[in-house]
C-alpha cells in the first residue's frame, strides 16, 4: 500500500514533505529578502512627518495617528447626512500632508486597507512640479 507514489516520491514522504515545504516557504522568502537580496526596496510603513509638526492641526498628533479615520468618518457623516459643514475638510489636510502617496497610501497598503476617501475626493500633490503617484 505504501508503495503508491505521488508526484514521483513515496506516498508517505509526499504527505509530510509537500505541506512542510509550503509551511517553510515564507521563511525561505524572508531569508532571501534579508540575506541574499542586496537591493530590496523595503518600503517601510513609517510616518512621513510634515515639515512643521502639528502646526494648527485639527487634533493633536497622537489622536490623529490612532483615530484620524474615525474623525474623517464623523465629519463625513456630519456633512453628508446632517448638511453641517465645519472647519474640518480634506482640503486642509493637504497643507501639511501634500503627498497622498506618502501620507496615506504607504501605511494603508502595508495592511491591505485601501483608503476610501479618494474614490470621490480630489487630493492632488500640493507642491508645484511634484507628481502625485496614484495607485489606481
Amino acid at each position, binding site marked *: 500500500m505504501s508503495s503508491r507514489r505521488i508526484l514521483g516520491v513515496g506516498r508517505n514522504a509526499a504527505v509530510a514533505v509537500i*505541506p512542510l515545504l509550503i*509551511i517553510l516557504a515564507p521563511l525561505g522568502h524572508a531569508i532571501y529578502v534579508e540575506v541574499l537580496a542586496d537591493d530590496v526596496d523595503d518600503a*517601510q510603513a513609517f510616518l512621513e512627518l510634515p515639515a512643521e509638526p502639528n502646526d494648527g492641526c485639527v487634533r493633536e498628533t497622537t489622536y490623529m*495617528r490612532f483615530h484620524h479615520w474615525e474623525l474623517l468618518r464623523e465629519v463625513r457623516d456630519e456633512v453628508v447626512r446632517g448638511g453641517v459643514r465645519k472647519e474640518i475638510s480634506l482640503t486642509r489636510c493637504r497643507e501639511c500632508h501634500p503627498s497622498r502617496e506618502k501620507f496615506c497610501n504607504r501605511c494603508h497598503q502595508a495592511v491591505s*486597507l485601501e483608503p476610501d476617501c479618494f474614490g470621490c475626493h480630489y487630493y492632488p500633490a500640493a507642491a508645484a512640479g511634484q507628481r502625485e503617484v496614484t495607485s489606481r
Partner: protein
Amino acid sequence: METTAKTSLPKPDTPGGAPLLVNPDLAFIHTLSRRIGENYKKCMQCGTCSATCALSPESAPFPRKEVIWAAWGWKDRLLEDPDVWLCYQCNDCSTRCPRSAHPGDLLAAVRQESIAHYARPRFLARWVNDPRYSALLLAVPAVLLGLAVRLRESIGGALGLVADAGDRIVYSYSSTLPHWLLNGFFFLFAILVLVAVVTGVVGFWRDMKAAELARGGVQVRALWPSLRTTLKNVLAHENFGECTTARIRYVSHPFTFFGFLALTVVTVWVITGGINPLVKGDFIYPFSFWSPWKILANLGGLAVVTGCVLTIRERLFGTAYNTAGNYYDWSFLVTLILVALTGFVTELLHYFRLEPHRHVAYFIHLVWVFALIVYMPYSKFAHILYRTCALVLAESFGRKRGVPPVETSRQQRGEEQP
C-alpha cells in the same frame, strides 16, 4: 480504590496457570459504559479485531486484550497500556467484529480516561470534559482578557511595557489589543499549561514504562532514534494510511494537522517580531494580505477548517464511526474550527474596517484561542503529547506495526486466495 486494585492485581498472562484474582474497578466500568454503552461487554474474545488491525504489533496485539481488561474493570492496566494509544480508531476492528462490540469505541473512551487520569490539576480535567462547566470555562478567559484590555494602560505603565511608537504607525488592532499585552497574557498561561501538561505526561510515561518492564519488555532502541522514527510517522501520517474504514481521516487529519502547524509557525513569527533577525524594523502588523506570512496563515486557516468540516461530516453522516462521538470529541473539534472561523471573521472585519465589530470579533477569537490552548492538557488536544509518548515508548520497546492483514500479505507473496 485504585491502590487496592493495583496491589491485588497479579501479573498478566501468568505462566503455569496461577490463579488470577480479578478485582474490578466498578466506577471505571460505569464511566466507560456511560460514555460508549455496554457493547464492549459483548466481546467473546475471538481475536478478529487484533487480527484485522493493521497497526497492532505481532506480539500481544491489541485490541482484544484491552476489551477484556475493560470488562474486568482493570483500570490501572488500561491506563498504563501504550497500545491504547497505538490505536488510531480506524474502526476496521469494529466493522469486522462478529459481536458488534466496537473495540474502536472502547479504546477511544480509555484514551479519554487516560488524559483525565493523568492531567493535573484533576478538577480542571473534570470540568473541561463536563458540558455543565463550558460556560464557566469560557467566562474565565473572557473576564480575564476583558480586565487586561480594560486596564492595559495602567498595566503597561506600571510594568514599563508600552514602548513609544516613535514615527511608527500604530494600527487600530495594536492600540486596542496591543501585542505586548496579548503576548504577556498568553505567555503567562502558556507557562501554566506547560507545567500542567508536562506533569501529566511524565506520570503517564513513568507508569507506561514501569508496566512495560514488568511485562518483561526490553528496551531495544534508544529514545532519540525512537522519537525521530515517531515524528516521521506522525508527519507522514503513516498510521492513518493503514486505515481502511476511517479512510477519510488520511485526508482530514493532515489538513487539520498541517493547517494548525502553519498557524503555529506564523504565530511564533509574529510573537518573536521584536527579537527575530528576519523581521527587523519593517515588521508590520496586521500583515498585508499578500505578505508571504499572511498567505501562509490564510492557507493554514483554510486547511484547519477543511479538515474539521471533513471530520464533522464523517462524525455526523459518515460510516466510519459507530457513534457521533461525545462531548470530549466535539468540544475539541468545535473549539478548533471556531478558532479558525473567528480568525477569518476578524480578518474580514478588518478589511471592511467595521468598528468596534472587528475588535469584538478579535476578542471572541482570543477567548477561543485561550480555550484551545489553556485547556489543552485536559481536552482531546492532549493527544498530541500522550499519543506521541506512547508511540515513542512502543518504538523503543520494539512494538512495531504488525504485518498487513492476511489477504494483503498473501497477495504480496503471490499466493492464491483460499
